[in-house]
Each structure stands twice: as structure tokens, then as C-alpha cells.
């Protein structure tokens, strides 16, 4: 069975800096894969190469067997892949509800059709469901910019799911979120994984979060994978401990 996401020998250099050196891994449908590693190990750059914000210097990326290397983010999004960003990226001037509608609108009908159709492009009911699912209902008409950081993070995660994506890459979803909301967030993600069979790849620094959420981990250091496996195995791997302590 082909994996949902196949990353093959991806390299990325910027001038003299070789940020990603030959990374290969598979992600299977329904998995929650964690990507961990010390700062500067190339995790975000790897994400950017998979998702089209950057074009890899070499290597291939396949989604569902189809080569998507170097495609633009909007194209990947329409193939069912979405992401969140490390630096919070909601649209502060739009309301929470509008943010969600925005995240889903490009996936319904045609662009021209959207000009003449309903103002919410038919995505309204989905947005309402998402508001309830992430418990953001009472904030629905507030400007996204006025929400607390943790709430914005929830919204950010919700937006990644509006497109009905089967594969979602989350870049440090727990960053800066206070501990009580973290449990909430993890719960919501686990629920989405179960109910929608959504596959996740998660970059995280918060070990507790990652260990509890992910079924499998890969560890990146200096642009290479140095360990792979179940969270418990990886935690005990001497190479991994070395990489973290060494920094």
C-alpha cells in the first residue's frame, strides 16, 4: 500500500547553508507522525519544501503516489494537503467565522461561480460545525486579532481543517499555548484523527505533547534523520539524547 505522503531524499541549500540533507520518510494514512529535533535542525525548512513555500534543491515529494515536488501551496491545498505555521497566521481584520469560511471557500465550486453565488460560498455550515468542535462559538463574530494567543492557535488549527484536508502538517501547534488549553488542543486533534481519518505530521518542541499525541516519531538533527520509531524507543535512543544535550 502506498503511503499517503512519501518524502524521498530531499535536499535544500541556501547559498552555503545546507539546511536539509537527504531526508526520506513515509507517512501512512491515519497516522500521527511527530517530527522533533533541536533548534535549527531543518524541521521548518523541510515542511516548507514539502508544502511548496520553498522548492527543494533536489529530491521528490509524493502525495497519494502523485509527484507534487515544487507545486505551489495553493495547488497542494487543493489536493488535500494543508498546514499551520509556526508564527501565528490568522487574519486579524476578519471575524473568526470569516477566517474559517475563507479557509474553506476555495474548495467549493469554481472561482467564477463564487463571484455570483452565496456570500459564504456554501461553506457556512461547515464553519459552524468547526466553531462548535473547537469551542470557539461565542467568539464567532469577534475580530480574530482580538483573541488571546491560545484562542488564535485553536483558530489556526481549525482553519487547516476547513478544506477537508486528509493530510495536515502542523508547525509547532502547542507553541505559546497555556497548559490548560494544551489538553483541549490535543483532545481535538485526536478526535479529528479518529473521526475524519485525518493524517497529521506535527513539528513540536513540547515533549509531553508530542509523546502523548503521536504514534510515531522521527528525529531531525542538522538536516538529517537520526532516529525513527515509537515515542518510547526514540526517547531512549542515545543518539537522540546526544543531539539534544549537545545543544
Amino acid at each position, binding site marked *: 500500500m502506498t503511503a499517503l505522503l512519501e518524502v524521498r531524499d530531499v535536499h535544500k541549500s*541556501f547559498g552555503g547553508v545546507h539546511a536539509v540533507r537527504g531526508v526520506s520518510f513515509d507517512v501512512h494514512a491515519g497516522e500521527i507522525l511527530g517530527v522533533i529535533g533541536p533548534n535549527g535542525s531543518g524541521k521548518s525548512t523541510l515542511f516548507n519544501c514539502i508544502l511548496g*513555500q*520553498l*522548492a527543494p534543491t533536489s529530491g521528490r515529494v509524493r502525495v497519494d503516489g502523485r509527484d507534487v515536488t515544487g507545486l*505551489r*501551496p495553493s495547488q497542494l491545498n487543493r489536493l488535500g494537503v494543508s498546514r499551520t505555521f509556526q508564527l501565528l497566521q490568522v487574519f486579524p481584520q476578519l471575524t473568526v467565522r470569516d477566517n474559517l469560511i475563507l479557509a474553506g471557500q476555495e474548495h467549493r465550486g469554481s472561482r467564477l461561480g463564487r463571484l455570483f453565488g452565496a456570500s459564504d460560498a456554501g461553506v457556512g455550515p461547515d464553519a459552524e460545525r468547526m466553531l462548535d468542535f473547537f469551542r470557539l462559538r461565542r467568539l464567532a463574530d469577534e475580530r480574530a486579532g482580538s483573541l488571546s494567543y491560545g484562542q488564535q492557535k485553536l483558530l489556526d488549527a481549525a482553519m487547516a481543517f476547513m478544506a477537508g484536508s486528509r493530510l495536515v502538517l502542523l508547525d509547532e501547534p502547542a507553541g505559546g499555548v497555556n497548559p490548560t488549553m494544551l489538553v483541549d488542543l490535543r483532545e481535538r486533534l485526536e478526535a479529528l484523527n479518529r473521526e475524519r481519518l485525518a493524517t497529521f505530521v506535527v513539528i513540536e518542541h513540547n515533549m509531553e505533547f508530542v509523546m502523548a499525541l503521536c504514534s510515531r516519531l522521527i528525529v531531525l538533527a542538522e538536516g538529517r534523520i537520526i532516529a525513527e520509531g515509537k515515542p518510547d524507543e526514540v526517547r531512549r535512543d542515545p543518539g537522540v539524547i546526544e543531539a539534544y544535550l549537545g545543544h
Partner: protein
Amino acid sequence: MTDLLQLLIAGLATGAIYALAAIGFTLLWQTSQTINFAQGEFVMMPAFLALIAMRWLGLPFWAALLFSMLASMLLLGVAFRYIVVGPLIRQGVLPLVISTIALSILLKESVKDFYSAEAQPFPTLLPDTPITVAGITVSLAQLGVLATALLTIALLQWFLAGTLTGRQMQATAQNPTVARLLGVPVERMILYTFLINAALAAMASLLISPIYLAKFSNGETLGLIAFVAAIVGGFNQVRGAIVGGLLIGVLDNLAAAYVSTAYRQAIPLILLVLVILFRPQGLLGRREERAV
């Protein structure tokens, strides 16, 4: 053949002046993300400051030149940095762009309203006497302009690459965040960039006004040439601005001789269109990382 060479030299002379304007513009963009839409007017004004010094303050020519250079650095460098750009940097890019556009109108109208709407003759630094070198006749003034501009560019390159301050400025231009971490006084570097831009613009003004006469509307053409030269050269490199400026100067002079004068101004525009269509990173630029 000799005609062609003469045109070439004349072209290089004006081109070197255009390069000065383009270099300043590029430096400002690199170090402080400031797109100065008033750059053309910055090259128009200093000549009028010199004329004011001579006519209203009664200063002799050499003193007026010095006055103009200093006043330019003060007004177009320091004042520009702290009064115009400073308060606007935190409002975002668009307000700053609008403000420099408004500034260009302000400078242009000020000269038109308070000095004169007529083109003013401007004295040359060197007389126009013809010299014949290897069978080619050029004017002493042209050689002087070429030499002065090239000397200024050479000095600037030496400064940027050979002195500590210069290298710090380059570091700030490439990556202000990292530069700050390395202990480079970024704020001061940015101020220096503004001062250098003002000085280069003043030098360009004083060199080109004898040729094209000083007129309040010069800014439009000169500004456009500075922008096109910077883009053609590669927008984020000083070397590119130099190449761009020289190229436009030469093409402009050749066009004046061989193409109808009515469309002479179109030369830099056509060049811009070609570059944007076929080599958007400019002649010397590197392909930008895709930024969506």
C-alpha cells in the same frame, strides 16, 4: 566609427551619473526597505540649493557646491530619515510609499512655486573645450564628469568593501537581524545609508544639471531612470545599479542620435519591460527564492 565612440563616451558619462542615483536608491532599499519614490527629486533639488546659495546668499560657485552638498545631506539625508521615514516605518510599507510619492510632489512644487518654473542654466565644473585623444574628439567637461562619477563610484566601492564601517553597512543590508546580533550598530548604519544616498544624489545633481539644465520637472525623468537602472541591474546589488546606469546612459545617447527624439524617453521604459519579461532578476541578480 569615431562618431560611435564619441557617443559611447558621452553615454558613459551620463550613464555614470545615472549610476550614482541608482546606487543610492538600491542602498536605501537594501538597508532599510525604503523605496524612495522621491529619488528623482533628490537628484533635482541639490542643483537648486546651489543656485539659491549663489543667487540669494551671494556665495561663489565652489562655496555654493559645498553648501549644496552639506544642505542635501542635512535635508535629504538626516531630515528625510528622522522626519519622514522614521515615523512611518512602523505604519507599514504602503504609507511609506505614499509619503515618498507625496514628498516628490512637495519638492517639485516647492521649486516650481518658490524658485522658478523655467529651466535654469547651471555652470560646469570644467569648461567645454574639445580635446582630441586618439582621433576622437570629446569635451573636457564630459571627461571631467566621467572621471568624477567613476571616482565617486570607486571610492564608494572601496568604502563598502575595505573599511570596517563599510562592511558593517553591507552586513546590515544583507540581514539586519543577524547584523544586530553580531553587534553592528544597525541604526547608525541606516543613518549612514541615508547620508550616502543624499551625497550621491547631490553629486549626480551637480554633474547632470550643466548638461540638461536645472528644471523642477527633471525629477520625473531622473527618478524613472534611477528605478529602471536599479531593476535592470538586479535591484539588490550595488554593482547591478552601476551596470544598469551605464547601460541606460549609453542606450539613451545612441537613441538620441539614431532614433526619433520624440520617443527618446521610451528607451529606459522598453528596457524595463524587456527585463521584467525575460530576466526579472535583472542582469546581475540571482533568481529570488520563490516567496509565493
